[in-house]
């Protein structure tokens, strides 16, 4: 009798079983992102101002505090993804007094919120509290994606607020070229009835916004992303990183109908911010009034905010000290990918260090 040899060895079976276990774990559980200790120092409605527990004693910290303004439809935990790969942790270790303006999850009662509330009410109040707690009249503000639109509008409306340094990351500001970006093309008035969407939903479902972001690169997001995980199931570093990012990507929040409409109608379609016709609480937002030192970080392979949407602000502001920093990478990747710790974060920290004492 001939013994038949199995084409798969027990070791290979065991490995496969382990890999399937890993696959199940990372696709069905949440990674504990957002771990750096912080405390709430101010709240208003759903918004919260967090202060990260400083990593260095007061005498070793920079004098000027830094506040983060993140996008409205994602959680700001991307700034603090996982220990050892966290921008928050990195900046704390370099002696910054860090604050996070967390917009929170809007309720139906907030459905009309637009820049009047976010920039005209919540931001000035949160900044006032931060300055009071930090004991500093001056501060720096970092805005990322839609958070950068809000930060830009704030800097233009309140140039005398003590804003010393403005840092913009992948900021979608100029929509002169409406064909540069999939979003602006999709929401063209010929194809998309924004009033009807806002009237129906009140709050724009996160699934709808997430679909929009993923559909810009459908193969990468719906197939390539999972193949990358499958190919690296025996590499714990890649698996942990994927797990953390997947947790963040799938944890979206609704956007208020008021802001969604303003974004599409007044910014994407009418380009009011760059034309200087955008109004917040009746006051014109003139980016020419921005005097803060400006660092504008652009991702050259950004499919969500193409570089042309971020670059032109450089010629419009009155800031004398300004720098445009172009990076290879994508919208999120420049702050979380393998080059973030080597290139992006050190550059931001180095720029800010020279302007924070």
């Amino acid at each position: 009798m001939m013994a038949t040899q199995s084409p798969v060895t027990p070791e290979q079976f065991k490995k496969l079983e382990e890999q399937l276990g890993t696959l199940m774990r990372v696709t069905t559980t949440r990674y504990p992102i957002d771990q750096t200790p912080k405390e709430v120092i101010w709240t208003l409605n759903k918004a919260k101002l967090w202060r990260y527990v400083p990593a260095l004693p007061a005498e070793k910290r920079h004098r000027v505090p830094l506040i983060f303004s993140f996008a409205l439809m994602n959680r700001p935990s991307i700034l603090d993804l996982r220990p050892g790969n966290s921008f928050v942790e990195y900046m704390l270790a370099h002696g910054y007094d860090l604050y996070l303006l967390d917009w929170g999850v809007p309720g139906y009662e907030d459905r009309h919120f637009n820049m009047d509330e976010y920039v005209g009410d919540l931001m000035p109040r949160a900044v006032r509290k931060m300055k009071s707690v930090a004991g500093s009249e001056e501060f720096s503000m970092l805005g990322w994606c839609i958070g950068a639109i809000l930060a830009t509008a704030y800097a233009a409306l309140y140039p005398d607020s003590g804003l010393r340094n403005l840092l913009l990351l992948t900021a979608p500001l100029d929509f002169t070229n409406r064909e540069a970006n999939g979003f602006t093309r999709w929401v063209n008035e010929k194809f998309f009835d924004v009033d009807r969407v806002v009237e129906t939903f009140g709050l724009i479902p996160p699934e709808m916004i997430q679909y929009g972001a993923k559909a810009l690169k459908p193969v990468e997001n719906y197939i390539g992303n999972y193949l990358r995980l499958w190919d690296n199931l025996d590499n714990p570093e890649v698996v942990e990183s994927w797990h953390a990012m997947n947790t963040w990507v799938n944890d979206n929040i609704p956007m208020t109908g008021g802001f969604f409409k303003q974004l599409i109608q007044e910014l994407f379609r009418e380009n009011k911010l760059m034309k200087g016709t955008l109004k917040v609480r009746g006051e014109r937002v003139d980016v020419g009034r921005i005097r803060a030192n400006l660092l504008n970080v652009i991702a050259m392979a950004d499919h969500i905010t193409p570089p042309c949407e971020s670059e032109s602000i450089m010629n419009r502001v009155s800031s004398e000290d300004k720098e445009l920093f172009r990076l290879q990478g994508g919208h999120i990747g420049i702050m979380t990918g393998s080059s973030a710790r080597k290139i992006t974060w050190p550059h931001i920290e180095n720029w800010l260090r020279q302007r924070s004492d």
Partner: protein
Amino acid sequence: MSEKQNNSNPFDPFEMWRGMRDSALDVWAKAMVQVVNTDAYAMATGKSVELYLTAIAPFREVYEKMVTQALQQSNMPTRSDVVSLAERLTNIERRLDDLDAKLDESELRAGRAKAKGEGR
């Protein structure tokens, strides 16, 4: 497309297959990026959204009316009651924040006056 993060063996048939797969996906990915960036795709997406909104509109209206009536008949607060309450609470929060700002300002002024007095 998908990047294996460790050293790979060029003689491994699975590696060859993976390379072919990734090349094919790259081509597909680039083609799909072109497709989604067309007016035709934008029009199709717009139509789908419109169709969806048209389909759900009557059901939403009926559902909202039914829930509101049921809540009113049970002496329970409706959504508009809760919204109104939330707005009132937020207004109170704003007033409290204004008071907090004044307190902070007073503390700051008192601290400055004290420091000035000690300096003399």
